[in-house]
């Protein structure tokens, strides 16, 4: 579905330039969920932004469905790939009703049957129809994230890019959104690339995942390898140990390193 080869990116020029991504390569199959996990600042969101066409100064190759994507944004590319952001408060326009938010992309792409599509998508993401003419501030955090997912799905994309889709949510609401994403993926045969700093969240939803550190991929492994603790990389193991529970000896080892 998507192939990323040798993706590199730097910010700034000359001596002050900082390389943020280095030799990033991975492939995600049809209907596969692929995760990117790693600590703050390691470059997870930047990878998604390159795929989504939000940057144009990367080098390397990205192709979707076998077709290389250019560095300028084409409308058809935009339609196949949709992105959901972390913050369900910031990513929705506060003065637009849910109806306006969901119909805007349909209008841009001149899709017909707007009314039918909106009620269909609200149903699929588990929002009552009564939400349709409300504003974001009249919804709960979980409901807002559902709207953001509905907006991403409404153009029938093939690939969803999810950047920390649940980290602003309460644990039980997080469970609802993770279940929703799993269900949509089954029903629509979508592929996801999902980013999170939470190893448990990534391992829950993703078939395979890449562990990133300082702009590089340290290891790519499948979920069961992660859950059974059979990773090869030392750094992956450190993240795994630190994520599972509080453990004094692990903490002391970290402090000593």
């Amino acid at each position, binding site marked *: 579905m998507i192939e990323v080869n040798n993706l590199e990116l730097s910010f700034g020029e000359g001596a002050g330039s900082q390389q943020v991504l280095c030799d990033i390569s991975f492939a995600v199959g049809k209907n596969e969920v692929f995760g990117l996990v790693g*600590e*703050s*600042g390691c470059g997870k969101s930047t990878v998604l932004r390159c795929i989504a066409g939000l940057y144009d100064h990367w080098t390397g190759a990205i192709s979707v469905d076998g077709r290389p994507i250019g560095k300028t944004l084409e409308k058809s590319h935009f339609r196949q790939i949709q992105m959901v952001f972390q913050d369900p408060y910031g990513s929705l326009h506060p003065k637009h009703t849910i109806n306006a938010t969901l119909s805007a992309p349909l209008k841009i792409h001149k899709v017909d049957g707007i009314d039918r599509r909106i009620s269909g998508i609200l149903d699929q993401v588990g929002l009552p129809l009564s939400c349709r003419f409300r504003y974001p501030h009249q919804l709960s955090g979980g409901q807002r994230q559902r709207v953001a997912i509905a907006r991403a799905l409404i153009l029938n994309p093939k690939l969803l890019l999810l950047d920390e889709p649940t980290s602003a949510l309460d644990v039980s609401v997080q469970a609802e959104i993770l279940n929703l994403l799993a269900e949509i993926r089954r029903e629509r045969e979508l592929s996801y690339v999902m980013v999170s700093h939470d190893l448990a969240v990534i391992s829950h939803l993703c078939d395979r995942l890449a562990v990133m550190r300082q702009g590089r991929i340290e290891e790519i492994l499948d979920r069961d390898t992660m*859950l059974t603790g059979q990773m090869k990389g030392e750094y992956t193991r450190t*993240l795994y140990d630190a994520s599972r529970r509080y*453990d004094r000896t692990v903490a002391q080892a970290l*402090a000593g390193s």
Partner: protein
Amino acid sequence: MSLIPEANDARPLIEVHNLWVRYQMRYLSMDAVRGVSFSLGREKLAIVGESGSGKSTVGRALLRLLSENARITADEMRFADVDLLKASERKMQKVRGARISMILQDPKYSLNPVITVGEQIAEAYRVHFKVGRKDARQRTLQMLEAVKIRSPERVYDLYPHQVSGGMGQRVMIAMMLIAEPDVIIADEPTSALDVTVRLQVLAILDDLVRERGIGLIFISHDLNLVRSFCDRVLIMYGGQVMETIAAKDLDNVQHPYSRGLLNSLPSLDMRRDILPVLNRDPEWMKLKEENA
């Protein structure tokens, strides 16, 4: 003269009986905390619960740090010999920071934006101990190192907007610890931290409990973390304590709300296709008999 019981004293550091907090809004009022009772010894006590269940309100009520529209009532709320309900504002100022410190949920808002982080910590130290600038600076650098900041000398001179979220959180923690308080209330202290840093910060708090005998109130919604880090857990819902349980028994909790909180977290130890979500029962909101 110290108000503080000796470290080998078994009396609780904090005792709370039947605490209520009501927020008064223009047209209605809301009881955010309803009849909460607990005591804190030299231990790590967790307060967990979903968003809005009243965790932060309990923490802030102890220090009387609530917004103006809040009204606190209780049969008892005491820290060592201090009656936290009746103490004058002047007395409370002495308690805050020096004896009971709170690490807040949003560190960025609690730092002064126009003073370097190092100076802020040093200043906090000088408020509590009679030392000169040079000693305060030295101690501050030690504290920054203790919270795992890599280059303390450099970070000392940064302004709050120049540090990342995780670093800001650690600066706050350093500032709280430098006053050597007897009780620390940590409100989601590690949610902005990377897992590896989080573990190290928890180890610092853990050492303070073990070695200096402080009491720690640890507010969190991460039950997996609480299970391995804390000694006891208060589980809150709708302003009430639903149950109190030893952290090691958390896996055996019976209340459906507690079970729901526990089960809804994705886990690295178990694979599930669907995560159970909370089905809130109106019964849970009812005021418990002992609180009525």
